[in-house]
């Protein structure tokens, strides 16, 4: 299973061991882990709440993974994204890509992250001393996405 949306935490080394199990053809394994930061524009963050659209989230992530497989010679790709209440320092998202060579693995991991940031139906709400605020989408995230559509 290449896409998982869950409330529970994940274990990076266990996931990598699963990807590597029983094969020796992988030359490069790139991983990205996103964490909850303790500071927002509005001040210190005490809790991060992640809402998502059950059903559409899995579909959107699966589409993104299939597109990555079409673009790069990947042997495997994995996305784990958590939802629900999270605390500063918690893991939010894991992206892992496996390929015979590093360039494809690096690029595909960036592509997956850039796409899921603004195309997978998740919404973050930060709780702090002054109350709770929905996180605004960033223009820089849209720009990050646009570089993959230029041919």
């Amino acid at each position: 299973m290449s896409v998982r949306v869950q409330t529970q935490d994940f274990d990076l080394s266990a996931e990598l061991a699963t990807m590597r199990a029983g094969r020796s053809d992988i030359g490069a394994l790139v991983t990205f882990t996103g964490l909850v930061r303790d500071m927002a524009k509005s001040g210190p963050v005490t809790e991060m709440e992640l809402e998502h659209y059950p059903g559409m989230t899995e579909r959107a992530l699966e589409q993104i993974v299939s597109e990555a497989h079409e673009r790069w010679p990947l042997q495997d790709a994995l996305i784990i994204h958590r939802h629900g209440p999270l605390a500063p320092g918690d893991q939010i998202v894991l992206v892992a890509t496996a390929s015979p060579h590093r360039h494809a693995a690096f690029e595909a991991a960036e592509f997956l992250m850039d796409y899921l940031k603004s195309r997978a139906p998740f919404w973050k709400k930060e709780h702090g001393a002054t109350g709770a605020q929905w996180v605004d989408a960033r223009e820089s995230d849209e720009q990050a996405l646009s570089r993959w559509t230029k041919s």
Partner: protein
Amino acid sequence: MDVIYFAWVRERIGLPRETVDTNAATVADLVDELRAREPRYALAFADMSAIRVALDQELTGLDASLEGVREVAFFPPMTGG
């Protein structure tokens, strides 16, 4: 059809989902109908540049046709990752 709301759209409208009887031809027509209902809808849909829409769980635009659609979702720009 089922209409679903997420994040601050859900909070402004005050409910996560509802069944709407409508003859609206497009998403924009449906938004106009909802806006006319009550101020909380007008507030949620005040700035359509801040609203994204999915029909049957596929992202689409406001001019999209509602023909054959079972589920419409309205939400703010996504902030995953």
